[in-house]
């Protein structure tokens, strides 16, 4: 009920900024076109790294972006929502209601997740319709499951990040470390295999690397569920380690902010 109220509120706010919706759509189209033409430019000289995925660079990048957009919302949304509610002044009013801080946090971020999910679906649909991406119905279910795991993994990091914002307000190192390293090392626009060996080990520690790999296997390499089980287990392991840690950190941050009287300061 409360979560629905948050969604409704954010829907109304989004609709009140109509021009922004249009701009977001244009941005997606422009980035798609950019990677399409990069793919066209180098399409003739097929890289051995892309052979497994049908040699189509555009389709390769498309899947990378579908996952990374979703993952970055998981990473950013919680801390961004805490920060903007502090700055706007709505956090105090929300916390004065009998609503748990977790509901406020998730409720305020849910709209961003839905937007990111729609964007990911849009990207994958474009790939299926125009660029030979293959997706069976069981494959689609597994892809959804992988996206869900990705979201939980990044939400856990996002909660760590929100804990940091709760106490230190600005200069969030968690967002910086996971955000930039995921973009660079996660295999979004080039394969992890082209990186030097030590960086490949670092890439293995990031959840986004596994999420993208799993989706590319499903959508481009057209392998079955069995072949991505080890990749999914890696994601689950990451969640098992980080999720409890992030909940403990967030509890501590709220307690500390209440003690210092800085819950709504920014």
């Amino acid at each position, binding site marked *: 009920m409360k979560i629905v109220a948050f969604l409704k*509120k954010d829907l*109304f*706010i989004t609709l009140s900024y109509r021009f922004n919706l249009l701009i977001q759509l244009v941005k997606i189209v422009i980035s798609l076109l950019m990677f399409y033409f990069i793919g066209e430019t180098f399409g003739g000289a097929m890289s051995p790294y892309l052979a497994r995925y049908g040699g189509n660079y555009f389709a390769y990048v498309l899947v990378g972006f579908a996952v990374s957009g979703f993952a970055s919302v998981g990473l950013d949304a919680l801390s961004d929502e805490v920060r903007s509610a502090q700055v706007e002044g709505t956090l105090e*009013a929300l*916390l004065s*209601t*009998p609503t748990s801080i977790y509901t406020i946090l998730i409720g305020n971020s849910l709209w961003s997740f839905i937007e990111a999910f729609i964007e990911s679906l849009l990207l994958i649909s474009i790939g299926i319709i125009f660029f030979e991406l293959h997706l069976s119905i069981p494959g689609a279910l597994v892809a959804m499951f992988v996206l869900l795991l990705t979201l939980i993994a990044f939400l856990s990091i996002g909660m760590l990040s929100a804990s940091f914002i709760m106490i230190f307000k600005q200069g969030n190192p968690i967002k910086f470390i996971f955000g930039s390293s995921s973009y660079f090392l996660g295999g979004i626009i080039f394969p992890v295999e082209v990186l030097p060996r030590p960086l490949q080990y670092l890439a293995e520690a990031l959840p986004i690397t596994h999420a993208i790999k799993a989706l590319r296997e499903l959508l481009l390499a057209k392998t079955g569920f069995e072949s991505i089980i080890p990749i999914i287990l890696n994601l689950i392991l990451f969640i098992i380690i980080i999720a409890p840690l992030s909940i403990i950190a967030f509890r501590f941050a709220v307690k500390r902010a209440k003690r210092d*009287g800085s*819950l709504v300061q920014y």
Partner: protein
Amino acid sequence: MRETEMSDPISFHNVSKIYRIPSLKPWQAIKKISALNDVSFTCPQGEISCLLGPNGAGKTTVIKILAGLVSHDGGDIKLYGMPYSEAMKRASVKIGVMASNDRSFYWRLTGRQNLEFFCSLYDIKRRAIHGVVSDVLLELDIEKEADKPFRLYSSGIKQKFLLARSILRNPDILLLDEPTSHIDPIAKDGIHALIRNNFIYRRNTAILLCTHDLYEVQRLADYIILLNDGRIIAEGSPMRLRSLIHPGITFIIEFSRMPGKNWAKRVPVTIIREERGKVECVARNKRGISAAIHAAVNHGGKVTKCTERDESIIDIFSRLIQGNAL
């Protein structure tokens, strides 16, 4: 201190709060600021208790502790006799908070959409929300404004919406943090009348008002808790606080002809101020006033007027804060 009852809506007993302020220079130790120091008070049902004090006195800290935004370090807080954390956990006591910050609304939404959203957060059932919001809008006379975006409202209307949000779930306790801080005197009077008529006379709510607006205190306070530097320095009804400054009646006699020197030597009054044609005195009781008038006339004075002076809350506040009366 007033008599306390177990079931008082709010009861603070020796509550203290220390803020730890980190220094901007990392090598310096954390600074500790005592915001509340053994603060004890109660708020009964159907009364407006007013936390009064200068900036930094600790008023907002009290409100924030009750709203659950800040934790206290020591002492006991009870709501209707129940420990604060238990009352909050069970949600058995409904607290409404009216902060002075109109940015706590979503400015892109209408007033009605804002109130409906907050109704959901107050656990009001979906079917009842429309009715609750309409009733509150009618009660505060803001129904006509309800479907305009919040950003277009005047300060007075925004203030009324802040009040509307705080009473959505018909609270047992209403916390008002500077409820009229940004509005003009006429709108201010309107809000004051609403608070008194709707929440005290009609709903019998326990109200804790936090302000440094002395006009507001004069209009609303049934009981004043005067805070300074995190401590209660005086408390009581406005009448009692007056008596702390002047244990008697202050009155002014105006003359068309002044009486001779030492006219008040044998009467039980103290002359505070003497200007041309006017004398301000304090008498212990009404008899003292008539004795003073007789003495003035007997010494050749021609009295044109005698008025009892209502000691303003501003005088009380400034004298108590400066320690003149204690």
